[in-house]
C-alpha cells in the first residue's frame, strides 16, 4: 500500500465547547462560525485525491471541527468517503455519541474516533465544561464496542502536567487503543508564560511517561502508547533506545515533524494551513489545487530544513526538530530553538 498522507479537515467551526486552549477560538480568532457546504466538500475531496494520486500517497482524512458530527451534511460526507473507499477518522467530542451513532460511523468506514482528555476530572472540566470528563470516559466503551479504535489525545502544559501519571493509568485501565499527547501551543506571549514547562521538567515528564508505559506493557496492557511528540526521539536517543543508522545521510530528512511533508490542514473556509497549530496559511483550495499548494512556494517556506537554528547543529535534525508550532507560539519563528528541548548543542 502507498504511504499515507494525512488531511486534517475542519468541516465546521460549530462546537458546543469553548475549551480554554482551543486554537480555533483563541484570542477571538473565530468570531463567525463557518461551515463548508457539501458541494465544496466534494471539491475538496476530489482535489485531495488528485494530489495523492500525483504524489503516490494514500489519503487519510481526520475529519474534525468544531464538532464534525454537528455539520448538517456530515452523514452525506461519510457516505461519500465510504463510496470512495477512503480511510478516515474523527477528532471529535463525546457529547453526541451513542451506540447507534457509533455503529453508523463504523458502518460508514470510520476507523478511529479520537477524544481529548486534558487531565483528571477537575482539570479537564475546568478546561472544557462540567461533565465533559465523565462523558468522555463513558463514551470510550461506546466507540470500542462499535468496532472503532478509540484514541485519547492529551495536551500537556504546566496547568495539567501533574495529572498525567493518573491519566495514563486511567487510559490503560479503560483499554483505550491509543494514547498520545502533544504540547500546548501558546497563542499569545502571556499564555506562553502562563503554561510554560521548563526543558528539564519536560525531560523528567517524558521519563515518568516512559516508565509508566513500560509498567503497563509488562501487565499486558492493550493500549498503544504513542511517542508522538518529536522530543521523544531525543529522549529515546539519549537512553539508547533510538540509534541513528550508520549509513544515514546528514542532509536528508527521515523523520520528525510532518509539517509540509506528510500532512496539511483544511479549514471550513477552504483555507489551507501547513499546520493548524500555528498561523501558517498557504492558500485556499478553491483557488488553487491541493497538489499545486503542496508543491508551491508558500508551503516550501515550511520545509526550509537548513533554517532550524538549534536543530541545525544537532545530529538528530533528520529525525526530530521538536515541535515547530510550539516554537512559533513562543517566538513567532518556527525555526527557533524548541522551548522544551533540553539538549545542549
Amino acid at each position: 500500500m502507498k504511504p499515507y498522507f494525512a488531511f486534517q479537515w475542519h468541516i465546521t467551526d460549530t462546537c458546543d465547547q469553548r475549551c480554554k486552549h482551543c486554537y480555533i477560538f483563541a484570542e477571538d480568532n473565530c468570531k463567525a462560525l463557518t461551515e463548508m457546504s457539501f458541494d465544496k466538500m466534494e471539491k475538496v475531496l476530489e482535489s485531495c485525491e488528485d494530489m495523492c494520486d500525483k504524489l503516490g500517497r494514500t489519503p487519510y482524512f481526520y475529519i474534525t471541527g468544531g464538532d464534525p458530527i454537528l455539520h448538517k451534511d456530515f452523514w452525506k460526507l461519510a457516505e461519500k468517503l465510504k463510496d470512495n473507499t477512503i480511510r478516515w477518522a474523527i477528532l471529535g467530542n463525546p457529547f453526541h455519541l451513542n451506540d447507534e451513532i457509533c455503529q453508523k460511523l463504523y458502518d460508514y468506514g470510520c476507523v478511529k474516533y479520537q477524544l481529548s482528555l486534558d487531565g483528571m476530572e477537575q482539570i479537564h472540566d475546568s478546561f472544557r465544561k462540567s461533565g465533559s470528563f465523565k462523558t468522555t470516559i463513558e463514551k470510550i466503551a461506546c466507540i470500542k464496542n462499535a468496532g472503532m479504535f478509540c484514541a485519547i489525545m492529551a495536551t500537556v502544559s504546566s496547568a495539567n502536567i501533574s495529572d498525567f501519571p493518573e491519566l495514563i493509568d486511567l487510559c490503560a485501565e479503560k483499554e483505550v487503543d491509543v494514547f498520545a499527547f502533544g504540547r500546548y501551543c501558546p497563542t499569545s506571549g502571556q499564555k506562553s508564560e502562563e503554561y510554560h514547562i521548563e526543558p528539564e521538567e519536560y525531560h523528567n515528564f517524558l521519563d515518568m511517561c516512559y516508565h509508566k508505559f513500560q509498567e503497563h506493557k509488562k501487565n499486558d496492557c492493550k493500549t498503544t502508547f504513542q511517542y508522538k511528540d518529536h522530543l521523544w526521539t531525543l529522549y529515546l536517543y539519549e537512553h539508547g533506545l533510538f540509534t541513528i543508522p550508520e549509513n544515514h545521510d546528514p542532509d536528508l530528512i527521515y523523520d520528525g515533524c510532518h509539517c509540509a511533508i506528510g500532512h496539511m490542514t483544511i479549514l471550513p473556509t477552504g483555507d489551507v494551513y501547513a499546520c493548524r497549530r500555528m498561523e501558517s496559511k498557504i492558500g485556499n483550495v478553491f483557488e488553487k489545487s491541493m497538489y499545486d499548494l503542496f508543491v508551491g512556494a508558500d508551503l516550501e517556506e515550511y520545509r526550509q530544513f537548513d533554517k532550524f537554528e538549534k536543530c541545525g547543529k544537532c545530529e538528530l535534525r533528520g529525525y526530530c526538530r521538536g515541535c515547530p508550532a510550539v516554537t512559533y507560539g513562543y517566538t513567532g519563528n518556527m525555526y527557533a530553538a524548541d522551548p522544551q528541548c533540553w539538549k545542549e548543542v
Partner: protein
Amino acid sequence: MSEMLNRVAAFGADNGACGTADPAETPASACGSACGATDPETPASACGSACGAADPDKK
C-alpha cells in the same frame, strides 16, 4: 518536485539509503499523521525503511 521535498527521504530518490534501527517502539513516522492526531492505524511508513516506523502495535 520541490528542492526541499527531494531532501525528505520519503520523497527523494534515495528512499532505501538508510537502514533502520528500530527500538521496540519508535517515534511517530514523519509522514502521514496530522499534528493534532494520533497516527493512522496502520504503520505503513512513508519513509520506507529509513525512519523505522514499523511499529507492529501502532494503531
